[in-house]
């Protein structure tokens, strides 16, 4: 019961913030709306027994990546562009295509589970599901190779970002 109320709250706020993000003119407002989406999603992760992922979402995504976005927006001093959306036919095609994708996704979601009478069976979760201990255990045993590759990827990204953003000394 509590989960249903919180789910409704978080999902409505996530959708409202995301609509605000896509359709606002001021870039800083868009970034703040995206932070709102991230916080709502973090709440939903807690409902889904993913406490570590929820905390990491706040720490990394909302706390670091979005701050980086905000820095770039503020440094570039981006003003809102005057026609907000792409002019002409491209706008119509864009909305149509997105609508088609949504219908497809909806069809997949609805056809996959049971009807309202019998919801899809949910397993009993093992104890410690979603806890940092469990994530650490799996991350360093089953998923060790992707973990190491990700660390190399992050290093590449750091080097790439520094090289790309540096001013060339004339």
């Amino acid at each position, binding site marked *: 019961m509590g989960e249903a109320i919180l789910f409704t709250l978080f999902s409505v706020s996530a959708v409202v913030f995301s609509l605000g993000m896509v359709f606002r003119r001021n870039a800083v407002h868009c970034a703040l709306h995206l932070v709102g989406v991230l916080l709502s999603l973090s709440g939903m992760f807690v409902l889904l027994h993913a406490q570590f992922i929820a905390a990491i979402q706040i720490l990394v995504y909302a706390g670091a990546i979005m701050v980086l976005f905000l820095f770039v927006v503020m440094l570039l001093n981006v003003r809102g562009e005057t026609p907000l959306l792409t002019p002409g036919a491209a706008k119509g095609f864009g909305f149509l*295509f*997105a609508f088609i994708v949504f219908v497809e996704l909806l069809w997949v979601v609805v056809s996959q589970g049971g009807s309202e009478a019998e919801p*899809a069976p949910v397993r009993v979760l093992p104890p410690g599901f979603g806890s940092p201990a469990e994530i650490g255990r799996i991350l360093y045993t089953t998923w060790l190779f992707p973990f190491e590759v990700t660390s190399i990827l992050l290093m590449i990204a750091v080097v790439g970002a520094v090289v790309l953003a540096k001013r060339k000394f004339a």
Partner: protein
Amino acid sequence: METVGVPTQYYQLVAALLFTIGLVGVLVRRSALIIFMSIELMLNAVNLSFVAFSRQHGQMDGQIFVFFVMAVAAAEAGVGLAIILAVFRHKQSVSLQNMNLLKD
């Protein structure tokens, strides 16, 4: 621990909705920064989908995937913003219609 509650379909529905809204943002907006943010929104919608499925099947692999998606998103945000910065230095604008050097 028994988990009855909101069925997974509802979470998938929200994820699909967020994904579509992000897709609209990518297709329809003109500022490179806003498009980048819409891509992040799409990534987050996929994260939600993964975590919901992870709970449904009772396996942690979905959450590990989300972990990696976040790490890759961080790397992508860093490099992407550096690219936007570099382009801005030349064009003094982030509007996509000015980034047409490869067009004939």
